[in-house]
């Protein structure tokens, strides 16, 4: 069984990088297409939050801000317990393509399992509620 660690997508968007940049890095933009509500402190180390109406609220940490080409953040692995320290890394790369933009998104780290997290998960008789699997499926549908 292959365990996917990394997801990559590239899309062509008929709008210039500046416009795409605003859509993915501002509270107004993120709250319009990604979540239903968003806040963002746009600087490396800054906090952002995405809320889905009737759904989850996700805390994000901004990692890279290189306007208008690279925007990256880390966020929790959806479906893992709240206290789980593992996070995936999401990087958006913007590149002019004619009058539009080639947008690439790479999310990596799904298969990570640090030695420490592994020990913690397997040594202890770890209890704790896990999120319902069904919630996973609905994750981004609201966007």
């Amino acid at each position, binding site marked *: *069984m292959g*365990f996917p660690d990394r*997801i990559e997508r590239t899309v062509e968007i008929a709008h210039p990088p500046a416009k795409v940049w605003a*859509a993915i890095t501002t509270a107004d933009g993120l709250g*319009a297409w990604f979540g239903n509500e968003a806040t963002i402190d746009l600087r490396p180390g800054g906090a952002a939050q995405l809320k889905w109406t009737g759904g989850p609220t996700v805390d994000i940490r901004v990692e890279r801000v290189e306007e208008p080409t690279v925007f990256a953040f880390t966020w929790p692995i959806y479906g893992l317990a709240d206290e789980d320290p593992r996070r995936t890394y999401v990087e958006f790369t913007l590149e002019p393509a004619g009058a539009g933009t080639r947008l690439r998104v790479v999310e990596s780290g799904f298969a990570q399992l640090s030695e420490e997290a592994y020990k913690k998960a397997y040594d202890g008789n770890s209890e704790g509620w896990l999120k319902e699997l069904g919630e996973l499926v609905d994750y981004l549908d609201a966007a």
Partner: protein
Amino acid sequence: MSWSTTSMPPDIEAIAEQVFSALADPSRRAILAALAAEGPATATDLADRLPITRQAIAKHLALLAEAGLVTAEPGERRRVRYRLRSAPMRVAQQFLAALARDWDSSLDALKEHLENSA
């Protein structure tokens, strides 16, 4: 669009495989669901609650215990109680999380948002 995969260490793969094998059987799903919903139980408790014979439940519990998905512990009147182990489920959940991260829908929504705000 591309989808690349990397291999996990064999032990992690083995854990995920055991979880999905366990979940593929309706009787084992019912047993795991009962333990998740109502907490630790003996084979007799489970036989009372589920439309599965006690013998079949004992067989499935032995298999689940061997796979590390439940642990046996002493219960009342020297009966063995079985408790769900969440750790292997988390490994399987990571796999599901990657499958469920729906970037296709999100990126479609982004495109649509930019079209509408043009």
